[in-house]
Structure formats: structure tokens, C-alpha cells
């Protein structure tokens, strides 16, 4: 919704918006349309010959067992990352909100990890859980768990989720803390009088007030688990073992990019595009609604 009072001008607004339009035109729409176009083509890797094949690439994709399992993994992995990182961050935020002195220190210590690149987080974990020098590996093995992310899907998934959650806690923490602090003092005081059990107070008063933040964060976290974890997967598991820890984005890269099958990978890009579109619609509706109340 635009402002009620606006400038009415002929060319000025176009000058202001031109850089943005130019950049997204050249570097977004052009490549994106090319991806759409390629998804209907069967092309040799070098671009020397190509045939129009209608929806064959999509058909290949949807009949492949691998693609189904990758989709399922992506959903399961995203779910685990979202629930765990939101849950842990919420607990930490509630506790930090109760701290009067030193809250800033906690906030600082709990947020800086935000700045660590996913690829850097991935290689850090690689070293920590390395069979030869990793102290965390030694710790796990000493419990009798024969930890082997190279060969065990379960172990690799656990490792991947752990690192993804680690990387995502700070963002969620910041939002929850801000959300908690925006609850008016009067509400909190009233709650304290009405409701003696802190647990009940949390669930009946605080949590409903945090729900919009939580819902919003959920969308952010799903986006994170889908896309931003690319560098993490590439440095940590590369989809191994047996391609069972590939997310959909990682598979686009692996199939199309490393396998040099552009048509198939473009089709995957388009499928992802549609998925994200759905996701963003939800987010957008929600964000707009929040603005208006």
C-alpha cells in the first residue's frame, strides 16, 4: 500500500527506480528466462545442438526415484532445522529476557555466529568431526556410537542438522528477544498477577503474543534450510552417503552443474522457483497483514 500523499511527477520516479530495474532485468530476468527456456530443451553440454522436447525434462524428473527421496529429505531436514533452531532460540530468548544485568553480554555471545559463512561453518564442523583430529568425533565414539557420517545416512543427517541449527540459532534468538521485549510491561504485570505458574503464564500469555514472530521466523527458517545451506552441504557432506543428504538446491547443482545436463537442472530450477513462489506468497500475505494491524 502506497502513501496517501505522493509526489506526482513525470520522469523523476523512473530515474530513481531505473538502476534497480536495470540490474534485475539483466542479472535476474534474463538468466531466469533462460533457465525456463532451457528446461524445455535437450541440449548437449557444450551448447552445440539442442532440441525442443516439451515437458520431457519434467517427466524425467518426476519419475526419478532419486528426486522423490531428495524432496523428502529436503522436507524432513528443513522441518528438523526449523523446529530445533526455533525451539532452542526460544528457550534462550526467554531466559535472556529474564536477565536484568548482563543481558547485553548474553545477547552478544549468542548472536555473533550469525556472521559466520555457511561454507566456513561447514568446514569447521568437518574438522571438529574428523576421524583423525576431531575431538568431537572422539567424544562421540567414546560413548560407543560408531559415528561415521561418510557411510551412515543417519549420522550424516544428524551432523548436517546440528551444524545448520548452530548457524541459525542467532537470528531466531534476536527476533524472539525483540518480540519478548515488545510485550508491554502492563501486560506482563497483569499476567504475573493472574497467573502464578510461570510455565502456564508462558503458554497462555507470552507465547500467543510471540506467535506472529514465530510464524514469520518459520518462513525465514524454511528459506534458510532450502537455500542458504548450500555452502554448508558442499563443504560438509556433498550429499553423501548415497546422495541421501542432498537438498533440492544441492541437487540442482550436482545434476545440472557437475553432470553437465542443463535441461534437467533447469527443470529442477523451475520446480524450485514454483515452490519458493508458494512460500513467498505465504510470507508476503503475512507480512502485509502485520503491517496493517
Amino acid at each position, binding site marked *: 500500500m502506497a502513501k496517501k500523499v505522493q509526489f506526482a511527477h513525470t520522469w523523476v520516479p523512473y530515474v530513481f527506480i531505473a538502476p534497480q530495474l536495470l540490474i534485475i532485468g539483466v542479472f535476474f530476468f534474463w538468466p531466469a528466462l533462460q533457465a525456463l527456456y532451457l528446461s524445455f530443451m*535437450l*541440449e*548437449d*553440454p*557444450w*551448447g*552445440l*545442438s*539442442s*532440441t525442443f522436447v516439451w515437458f520431457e525434462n519434467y517427466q*524425467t524428473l518426476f519419475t526419478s526415484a532419486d528426486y522423490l527421496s531428495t524432496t523428502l529429505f529436503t522436507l524432513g531436514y528443513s522441518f528438523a532445522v526449523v523446529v530445533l533452531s526455533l525451539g532452542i532460540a526460544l528457550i534462550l530468548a526467554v531466559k535472556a529476557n529474564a536477565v536484568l544485568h548482563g543481558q547485553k553480554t548474553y545477547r552478544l555471545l549468542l548472536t555473533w555466529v550469525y556472521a559466520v559463512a555457511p561454507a566456513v561453518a561447514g568446514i569447521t564442523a568437518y574438522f571438529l568431526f574428523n*576421524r*583423525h583430529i576431531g575431538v568431537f568425533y572422539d567424544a562421540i565414539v567414546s560413548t560407543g556410537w560408531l559415528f*561415521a557420517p*561418510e*557411510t*551412515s*545416512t543417519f549420522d550424516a543427517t544428524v551432523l548436517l542438522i546440528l551444524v545448520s541449527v548452530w548457524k541459525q540459532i542467532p537470528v531466531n534468538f534476536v527476533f524472539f528477544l525483540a518480540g519478548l521485549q515488545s510485550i508491554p510491561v502492563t501486560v506482563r504485570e497483569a499476567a504475573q498477577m493472574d497467573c502464578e505458574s510461570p510455565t502456564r503464564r508462558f503458554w497462555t500469555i507470552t507465547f500467543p503474543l510471540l506467535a506472529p514472530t514465530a510464524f514469520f521466523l518459520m518462513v525465514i527458517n524454511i528459506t534458510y534450510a532450502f537455500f542458504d545451506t548450500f555452502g554448508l552441504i558442499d563443504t560438509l557432506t556433498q550429499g*553423501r*552417503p*548415497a*546422495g*541421501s543428504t542432498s537438498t533440492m538446491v544441492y541437487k540442482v547443482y*550436482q*545434476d545440472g*552443474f*557437475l*553432470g*553437465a*545436463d542443463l535441461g534437467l537442472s533447469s527443470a529442477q530450477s523451475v520446480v524450485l522457483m514454483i515452490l519458493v513462489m508458494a512460500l513467498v506468497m505465504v510470507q508476503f500475505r503475512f507480512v502485509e497483514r502485520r503491517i496493517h494491524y
Partner: protein
Amino acid sequence: MFKKTLAAAALSTLSLQGFAATEIEWWHAMGGALGETVNAMAEEFNASQNDYQITPVFKGSYEETMTAGISAFRAGEAPHIIQIFDAGAATIINARGAAVAVQDVMSDAGYNFDINDYISGVRYFYADENGKMVGMPFNSSTPVLYYNKEALAAAGVQPPATWEEFEDVAQALKDAGYIALSQSHTPWIFFENFHSRHNLQLADADNGFSGLPEKVMYDNDALAAHLTAVKEWKDNGYYGYYGRAWGDNQAAFEQGEVAMWLGSSGSFGGLKQSTDFDFGTTYLPYWESVYEDAGSTFIGGAALFTMAGHSDEEYEAVAAFFDYLTLPETQYFWHRETGYVPITNAAYELAKDDGYYDLNPDAEVGIKQLSLPGAEWTKGYRMGFYVQTREVIYNEMDRLMAGDTTVKKALRTIEKEGNANLKRFARTVQ
């Protein structure tokens, strides 16, 4: 100090411009120590003459290098020379117009090119259906068995020549506290070279050499029996499976956890640095019951391809560099530093005359294995979208070792997906 460096850089740029040397770029996948050797050779070439300057650029793994080359070619920014690995050979050789045959590059620039100068094992692997060499088999290796001498002595056994023997050796090693074997490249060692060693066909159209193949032949009894045995070995504690990464399996050998390791003859140089025990090298074991006259294996590694779309002067530079690379001295240096086999007969002779193998008999195992008598199916293979098929093989091996699939099912999946890849590829190049 920073200023000085700048000044020096400016000076060297100036001096280069003064000579107006033809500059060419070489994208490769040789990291670490291998990369340093590549750099040393490029520097020596640049210093040896004033007309040409080559710049090697490390582009990551074999897959990443090929992809980078493909993207660059599509964008008209291809490097002059690109290193493409065995599995990608079909991708570049079958695409008419992507590469210029090394044979043509050399003869056009006035060099004498004779394919028979190259040792028999590498001669035709990167050649087209008419026997014309398209890619220069730069870093050629072959799978060999490395064994920890101390471990084998402790168990009182000799390295096995056949898989039948291996089963006895493995128990003794287990009793001595070792896992007998690990292996670093399932598709290459247990699939492709398994077929070469046992002289078994692995794809139609003469393994893809006489046309575009449409059928992978991996679902056969010999391979099924082998994989069944491997799985049993793993369950018995004879075989250590550390996932699909090359390094994880090699490391287990280096750390003395595993007594024998199947790797590349090109790993020799690295192993010498990273192990603190005495190790020996021998041929890739075979099943006597399958084929008694086990012969030559395929080469692995990669070849250098000249990309289309550059000027004649630049191709001259490429030819000059290839000429330098195939000099016996250069090849001998490369062979000594890395363990990759010398690719020309002259270089092999030089290494022999120099007494290199008298001091390092192990370094000769790879080239000797490649020189074993070949048979109908040992020349090579050429399959489209084979990078993806290898991916399927890796994945099925992961599943098989984890007990998530059976040998029968795994082989069926590999054939099904492999065939689909072949058919898809055949349509893209027609």
C-alpha cells in the same frame, strides 16, 4: 616492501609486453603437491623460450574443472587447454566442435606426431573412432594394490595376486589386528577396471568406441559375484569402507588401520610423503575363476584437450607446450614427482636407463600393468553422461555397504540409470 612488490609486478608486466608473447591458459584439476608440480613444469616451459606464456589455473575437482570449462565454452571464454578426466571423455570427444584433436594441433604446427610414440596402454583411450588422438593422456594412472610391508610381515603373508588368495590373506591380517583392504574409487576400480582386467565387455558398440552406446553391461554374473564377495568381506571385517571420498579410504591405509589399499599408481608420490612405514606395490588382484589370463587395465586420470575457437598463434603455443610436455625429460620428471605413468615409450626408456626402477621397483608397477597383454575389451570405454552414471554407482555402493540394498538390485539400478544416461546423451549429440 609492498611498494617494492608493486614495482616489481609493474616491471614484469612491462617486460612481458615487450616480448609480446602469445599467452595461453590451462585449466586443470591438480591440487596440492600435484598442482605444485604442474606449476613447476609451466614455469620451466615459460622460462625455456620467449614466444609463449602459459598460465595454469587450478579449477577444483575433475568434475568442477570440466563444468567450468563447459560454462566458459558456452560463453565463448574457453581456456586453450583443459584437463578432462576419463569419465568425461565421451562428453568432449563426442561433441563435434568442442575440441581440436591434439594430433591435428601438433601436425598443423609442424611437429611430427606419431601415435605409436605413446605407450600402448594410453594410446587409444582418448582417441576417436578412427584412431586419431583427440586428448593428450597427460596424467595417466591405473589402479594398483599398495600394501603395508610391516603389516603383511606381522601377519606372515604375501600380497595377494588373486581375489581367491586375498580371502586367506585377509583372515591372517585380521588376526594380526588389521583390516585387510580399503579402496578409493568404486566405479573406476571395481567396475570399469574389473571388466578390463577380466576382459569383459562393459557397453555395446565396442564399449562405445565404434558408435554411441545404448546399453551398459554391468549387470553380469562376474561383477555380481565380486560385489557379493566384497560385501561379505566387509561384514567379516576384511574390507574397510570409509565412504566414497578418495581421501578417507587412503587415510585409513596411511594411518596403519588398513593393511592394503587399492588406489591409483599416481598416488605413489603422495604416499611416499604421508606414510611412515615401508609399503610395496603390486598389480590389481583378479578372480582366477573368472579369467585366468588377467590382462591390462584401463588408464584413469585425465587428458589435456585443446578447446576450439582460438587463433592459430595460440594453437601454435599449445602445440609448443604439448611438445614440451611429451619430452622424455619432462615426462620422466612428472613420473618421478607424481607416480603417474610416463606416457611415451621414450620417457619410459629414459626412466629405465636412468636406473630409476632399480631403486624404486614399485614405481614401475603401474606402467607394467598397463603393458600387460591386452585383449578385446581392454582398450577403453566411452560412455555419455558417464559422470552421472558413476554417481549412481557410488550411491549404490554406499547403499550396498550400509545394507540398504542387495547386489542384484544395485546392479539393476545402475544398468537402468546408466542406460537412460546413454540414451539421453546420444540424443543430445545427434
